[in-house]
C-alpha cells in the first residue's frame, strides 16, 4: 500500500487497525517538525530528542482518542509544546533553587557563576547546539518568552495560520496575534542592525 500517498487521517485510521507502516509514515512526516519545535523551545539536543520521543509515544499510544475534527499535526504539536513548556517550568524551578544558594550574593556574582557553569567545558552536545541554533536569529528566538517561541516557530517554520496556532496553544485568536506581533517586534529590536 502506498502509505506516502495517504493523508494524515487515513493513516491514523490504518494505525488504529494495527498497521505499523502507518505509524512509520506519520513519524517520517512529523519527526522533523515536532523535533524542530521542541528543540527551539528547550535548546538542548538530548532533551529535545527525549521530549519529541515522548510526544510520539504519547500520541501513538492514545491514537484511539484522536478526534478527526482536528488536524493530526495540531494535535501532535499541542502535546509536544505542552511537554516542552512543562520541562522549561521544571528547569526554571531548578535554576531558581540554585541561584538562591548563599554563595552568590549579588546579581553580578550570580551572573558570573552562571557563565562559569555554562563555559565549563563545552561538550559535543553544546557544540551541536552552537552550530544549529547559533545564528543571530536563532539566539534571538531563544531569548524570547517560551510562548512567543512556540508561536514564531509554528508561524514561520511550519507556516501555520493564526487559527491553527490558536488551536495548538489553546489560546484565543487575538492573543496569538498579539504574541506574534510582539515577538517579531522584540526580534527586530535585537536584530535591527542585521536585518536591514
Amino acid at each position, binding site marked *: 500500500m502506498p502509505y506516502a500517498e495517504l493523508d494524515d487521517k487515513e493513516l491514523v485510521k490504518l494505525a488504529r487497525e*494495527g498497521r505499523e507502516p502507518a505509524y512509520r509514515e506519520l513519524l517520517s512526516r512529523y519527526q*522533523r*517538525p515536532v*523535533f524542530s519545535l521542541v528543540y*527551539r523551545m528547550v535548546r538542548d539536543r538530548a532533551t529535545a530528542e527525549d521530549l519529541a*520521543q515522548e510526544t*510520539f509515544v504519547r500520541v501513538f499510544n492514545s491514537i484511539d482518542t484522536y478526534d478527526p475534527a482536528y488536524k493530526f499535526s495540531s494535535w501532535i504539536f499541542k502535546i509536544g509544546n505542552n511537554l516542552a513548556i512543562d520541562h522549561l517550568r521544571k528547569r526554571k524551578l531548578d535554576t531558581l533553587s540554585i541561584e538562591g544558594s548563599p554563595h552568590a550574593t549579588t546579581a553580578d556574582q550570580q551572573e558570573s557563576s552562571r557563565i562559569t557553569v555554562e563555559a565549563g567545558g563545552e561538550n559535543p552536545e553544546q557544540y551541536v547546539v552552537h552550530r544549529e541554533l547559533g545564528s543571530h*536569529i*536563532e539566539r534571538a528566538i531563544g531569548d524570547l518568552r517560551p510562548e512567543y517561541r512556540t508561536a514564531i516557530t509554528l508561524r514561520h517554520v511550519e507556516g501555520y495560520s493564526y487559527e491553527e496556532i490558536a488551536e495548538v496553544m489553546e489560546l484565543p485568536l487575538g492573543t496569538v496575534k498579539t504574541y506574534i506581533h510582539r515577538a517579531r517586534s522584540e526580534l527586530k529590536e535585537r536584530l535591527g542592525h542585521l536585518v*536591514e
Partner: protein
Amino acid sequence: MKAATEHLSDTLLQDYAEGVVSGAELAAVEAHLVGCTGCRSGVAGWRALLANLGELPRLAPSAAFADQVMARVKIRTPLAVRVLAWVRSLFPFPATPRTWALATAAAMVPVAIVGGAAYWVFSYPGVTPGNVLTFLVWRAGDAVGGFVAQTTTALLESRFVLPAYTILEALARSPGAAVATVSTFSALTALALWVLYRNVFTARSVDGRHAAHLFAF
C-alpha cells in the same frame, strides 16, 4: 485628511509586509505609503525580518529516532487481524511459488481419493445421491440422539451431583456463607476476565516480547 498624516501602526506594517492585509484596509495602507517614506522604510525593515524568519530550517532528530519511538509504541491490533495471524502461525503457510505448488499438489491427494471413491460408489446402479443423503441424515440423527441421552444419564448418575446438592443446601441455610461464596466467585471471575483482556484483547508490544508479560497485571 488628518488621518493620512498619522503614521501606520507597527502591527499594521508587519501585517502589510507579510501580505495579510486586504480590502479597504489594504487600499488605505497603500495610499499612506505612497506619501510616507518613514512607513515605507518600516515596511522594508519588516520584510527583511520576515525573509530571515522564512529561512529558518526544520531540524532533524538522530537517525535512530523513529526506531526508538516504535520500540515504545503498543500497536493495537483488532481481534480479526490477530485471529488471522494466529491461524497463520499454526500452519506453515507457503511462502514461495514453489512451496505453493507443492502444497497444492499435497492438498489434491485427498481430493483425488475422495473423488475416486465417490465415483466408484455412485457407479453402482440403485445408489443415488438422494439415497446416500437419506442414509447419512438417519445415521447422524441417531448419533446426536445417542450422545444427548448418554450425557444426561452420566450427569444424573455422576457422584458429583450429590455433594453439589449438599453444598447448595448448606449455602441456602446460611446467607453469610452464600454471600461470601458468590463474592469470591465473582472476584475470581473478574480477575480471570481481566487477565484474558490484558493478554488477549489489548495491545501487545511491537518488539514481540509478549510472552514476557503474559499474566502481567
